[in-house]
């Protein structure tokens, strides 16, 4: 289980250490909350771990229309960031449900996205919030929408040698995340539903995504289309629920059966829509 441990201070140095041709089996190490147990248990055998802790990837920036979250910022920092609390309430609700406080002191948003766990509680809100990623490599930075980045469960379009430089999220976005699980803390949701309101440009302003569906968290375009404006009628909400349930393949595993998840999807979608509507009122309308 022996591996070398590196602490590069510049991105160039990191890319050299992560070069698949130079150092076979070198893995980037961010918070390590997922990676270290896998290595310790002998599931992965990296030749080297390249710590991202000394790289300039822990930045936080707020522009007029966006929040830019550095790839290695710990979740605990994000849930306490006043701009995120105020402008992206649905994201904060999901972050606060990840693991426990000490875990969130280490776990990062970049790491969560790159692992692409099908059970991630952060992917539904990030999808509904239309997050995109700046992926940095030796060749520069490319931007990719999160929806295109996720390829399957545990599968992304990340290329070898690429690091998450930033996660970009448009603001403000009245939003909400509703979930159900066996235990509130230190657990993973059976189903989680995130809603966000964007500018409509003639289409529905609703962006809705769910976890607990196959094969990984994804947007629910049918439900979105059923809601034509910011303050939907009860009938429209029921239509959105109907389309969400009809249009999704629910997971069936040890966390919950398919039937129960189908029920949860409807309940949580109603709650998430309602809470987003009331947030839109207090936040003074939809975002960009």
């Amino acid at each position, binding site marked *: 289980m022996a591996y070398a*441990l590196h602490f590069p201070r510049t991105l160039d140095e990191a890319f050299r250490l992560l070069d698949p041709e130079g150092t076979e089996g070198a893995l980037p190490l961010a918070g390590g909350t997922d990676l*270290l147990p896998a290595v310790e248990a002998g599931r992965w055998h990296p030749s080297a771990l390249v710590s991202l802790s000394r790289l300039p990837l822990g930045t936080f920036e707020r522009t007029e229309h966006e929040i830019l979250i550095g790839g290695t910022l710990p979740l605990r920092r994000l849930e306490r960031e006043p701009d995120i609390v105020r402008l992206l309430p649905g994201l904060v609700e999901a972050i606060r449900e990840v693991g426990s*406080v000490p875990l969130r002191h*280490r776990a990062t948003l970049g790491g969560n996205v790159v692992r692409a766990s099908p059970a991630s509680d952060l992917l539904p809100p990030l999808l509904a919030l239309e997050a995109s990623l700046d992926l940095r490599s030796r060749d520069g930075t490319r931007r990719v929408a999160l929806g295109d980045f996720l390829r399957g469960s545990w599968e992304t379009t990340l290329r070898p040698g690429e690091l998450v430089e930033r996660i970009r999220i448009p603001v403000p976005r009245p939003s909400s995340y509703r979930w159900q699980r066996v235990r509130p803390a230190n657990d993973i949701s059976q189903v989680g539903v995130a809603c966000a309101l964007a500018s409509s440009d003639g289409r529905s302003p609703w962006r809705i995504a769910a976890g607990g569906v196959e094969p990984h968290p994804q947007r629910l375009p049918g439900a979105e289309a059923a809601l034509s404006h910011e303050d939907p009628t009860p009938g429209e909400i029921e239509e959105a629920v109907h389309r969400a349930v009809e249009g999704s393949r629910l997971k069936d595993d040890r966390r919950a059966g398919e039937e129960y998840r189908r029920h949860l999807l409807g309940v949580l979608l109603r709650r998430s829509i309602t809470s987003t509507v009331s947030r839109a009122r207090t936040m003074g309308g939809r975002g960009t």
Partner: protein
Amino acid sequence: MTRSVSLRLRVNGVPLERSIPPNRILLDLLREDLNLTGTKRGCDLGTCGCCTVLLDGVPTLSCLTLAKLVEGTEVTTVEGLGEHGELTALQRAFVERGATQCGFCTPGFLMTATALLRDHPTVSRKEIQEALSGNLCRCTGYVKIIEAVEAASRSGASPSLP
């Protein structure tokens, strides 16, 4: 074979310098190398909180932390609570309220709650529950533990760190 790396840090106020394998986990450094066995290994996965220590005052799961990554920090374990062999107000409250049964989870609870009371000397029951939600206990049913933290918070004596 991968070479050892040097590590410098302070543990419970004592400066320490040694050479360790790069893959040494902080929990193993504490328990195996330094014989500080108060910090417990429960799940090794980041879900039980038994291995919680303070890194520069911040509660951290030592089972998920590479020792080399904490270079230069101050690590506080349960052995470092209190001064001159005296228990802290929080530890006394645990004893008085019967917040300990088998005791396996106790060091983790003490470290998490110590940081909580340091940052918020008076806390509500809800805040205590939230802060402790990452620590699992198989014996007490949590009520006594929460009561103990509440009592220590009302007693006003904020627990001392070395």
